[in-house]
């Protein structure tokens, strides 16, 4: 099934019903053959159970006591979760609420900035022709191949010269751009935006920025949502750089929670109660991001 290479601005695919024709024929909700049956849900159920297990395990241990970790897994929760969670929140070494707030807004800013810069750059690399485009893209992808473990050293030198250590800005600034994000949006937009749409918009007299706004931003929504989610989670769980550059009075959540382990004998029921607490905001974000995974976002945009 190859695609016509018609030079007209007609529909991409010959024989594919246009929107109007489809409406005439009576809209059907069947997408790809039969409605998903038992096997689909069986597979989904298995995937779900195995994916959610660590959360469940953490909850079980987190609702036990200091010995629960080393005993055979009880499979049912103990009764201590609320107590353990409270001791996490009220632990004086763990600045819980400031740390939570710091994590929330720094991760949010980072994710937003990454999505914005990546979508802009991705649009250019995917759909615009300009001198040096391919070379720059290769350069961007190549930078991902340099391991990050040593990056803390020069970054710390830079930020201590600037006098920004101890401030949340030192967490946010280095993370504002992501080569991964640019590459992801580039490949996604390459695939998700038919060139014809852009041509149509241009012929209609739209400027580049309007084309970007109307075509690119709309098409990018599912990918942008996923990128936002991934970046947010990555920033949220990041430990080493915040540990080095922030001070204990102004930490992010992973750094703060790590202090629960500062003892010769570690009570893991409390540590894992902290893990559950730190995961809840992420699960809330899941719901918002997941709703953006909408199929056919560009359907009907290709006009006859």
């Amino acid at each position: 099934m190859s695609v016509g290479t018609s030079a007209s601005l007609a529909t991409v695919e010959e024989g594919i019903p246009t929107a109007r024709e489809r409406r005439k024929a009576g809209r059907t909700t069947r997408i790809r053959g039969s409605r998903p049956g038992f096997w689909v849900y069986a597979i989904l159920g298995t995937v779900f159970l195995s994916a959610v297990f660590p959360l469940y395990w953490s909850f079980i241990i987190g609702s036990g006591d200091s010995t629960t970790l080393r005993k055979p897994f009880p499979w049912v929760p103990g009764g201590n979760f609320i107590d353990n969670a409270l001791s996490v929140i009220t632990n004086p070494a763990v600045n819980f609420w400031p740390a939570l707030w710091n994590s929330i807004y720094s991760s949010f800013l980072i994710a937003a900035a990454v999505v914005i810069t990546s979508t802009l750059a991705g649009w250019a690399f995917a759909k615009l022709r300009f001198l040096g485009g391919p070379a720059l893209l290769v350069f961007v992808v190549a930078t991902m191949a340099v391991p990050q473990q040593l990056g803390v050293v020069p970054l710390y030198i830079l930020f201590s010269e600037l006098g920004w250590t101890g401030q949340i800005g030192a967490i946010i600034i280095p993370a504002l751009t992501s080569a991964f994000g640019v590459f992801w949006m580039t490949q996604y937009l390459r695939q998700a935006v038919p060139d014809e749409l852009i041509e149509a918009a241009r012929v209609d007299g739209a400027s580049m920025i309007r084309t970007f706004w109307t075509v690119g931003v709309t098409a990018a929504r599912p990918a942008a949502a996923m990128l936002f989610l991934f970046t947010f989670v990555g920033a949220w769980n990041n430990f080493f750089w915040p540990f080095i550059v922030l001070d204990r009075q102004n930490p992010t959540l992973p750094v703060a929670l790590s202090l629960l382990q500062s003892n010769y004998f570690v009570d893991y029921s409390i540590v894992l109660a902290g893990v559950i607490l730190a995961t809840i905001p992420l699960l809330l974000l899941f719901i918002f991001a997941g709703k953006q995974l909408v199929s056919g976002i560009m359907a009907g945009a290709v006009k006859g």
Partner: protein
Amino acid sequence: MKSRALRRIGIIAGAATTTAIVLAGCTGGGTPTPTSSGDGDTNFEGVELTIATFNDFGYTDELLAEFTEETGITVVHNKAATSNDARANFFQKLGKTGLADVEGVEVDWFTEMMKYSDLVAPVPDDLKGRWLDWKEQAATDANGNLVAYGTDIGPQAICYRGDLFEAAGLPSDRAEVAELFPTWDAFFDVADEYVATTGKPFIDSANSVLQGLVNQLETAYEQPDGTIVATENPDIRAAYDTVVDRAIPIASYPGQWSDDWYASMAGGEFAAMLCPPWMHGIIAGEAPDVTGWDVADAFPEGGGNWGGSYLVVPANGANVEAAQLLADWLTSPETQIKAFNNAGTFPSQPEAQSSADLTGFVNDYFNGAPTGEIGINRANAITVATYKGEKYFQFHDALQNAITRVFDGLEDKETSWNTWVTEVSAF
């Protein structure tokens, strides 16, 4: 679409504003400089110091509040979760900005710090002699400067399971058990007997024995003048042989702190451990339901030290003198006793040993053993301070790996030794 666009713009504007606010955020209030009153005493009223520790040094907020009351200096206590995190943080920032005014340094990475002893402020001469001489000697650099304030030590004794000993036909009374372990040979003989009788391992790990043996040598891998003698030192070879030949057959695991090791602690698999005071809390925490633990006031060849920390004052700090005051106060015998009561960190100051808090300390979990007194006796039995050069832990870790390879059956005794020799010759 328009509203979405507007929303996006709103988000961007909000983000930009927030970022600007965050970045423009004021730094913490400047620390007031100390004022000097006429009679030559410096008044540090209003100064704020930070102290950075890890694990648990026993410095509670109440303890630090006492210091504030006495001197007017407020103390902010930064903690790192583990010694490793603290180490990464310390060396990242040493000589630059960002270290606390007083930093805790563990003995494991203390030797690495000694390379940069010029970057920490020396301890005033009048404090010399406050600590046990081997503790002080390890903190003295090539120029004779004492550069760190000792905090705690880990004088080892033998923790044992009285009930398991009894079941194997061995004495279970503390004093009697103490007589069983005058030398390493005697220790291993008892162990062999136990294993033969019960078929179960005697101690928890082979590498704990390696640690015990090497810490009783005067020269281990390097000499004070810098020459590396690791592979030629007959003592090291002898220690390796001893561990492979005699410790591996009686041990549960090659090394400690693995998941299996923790599980066996909880299940009460082995009968004895070489234990310094800080191990007591770990045993009690991991095996709260086991009742037979006790401590014998003995150690093969007398004594050995395992662990311990120091406090150092970075020389480029903003308030070096005030920091030295804090370090002095925290490592004074009286304060160390208080820390001991808080966290079980055994004092390294001889004067503290006469404190009733220490001599009368009794540990209920360990069958009421007088662990304070035992610690004092074992600390005084330590005669040798192993010289540890800056690469000590690299050599030692590699040797532990060699033991582990033999334990796991990956290489035999000679091959593993040769692998170690090849490995360390690259250092």
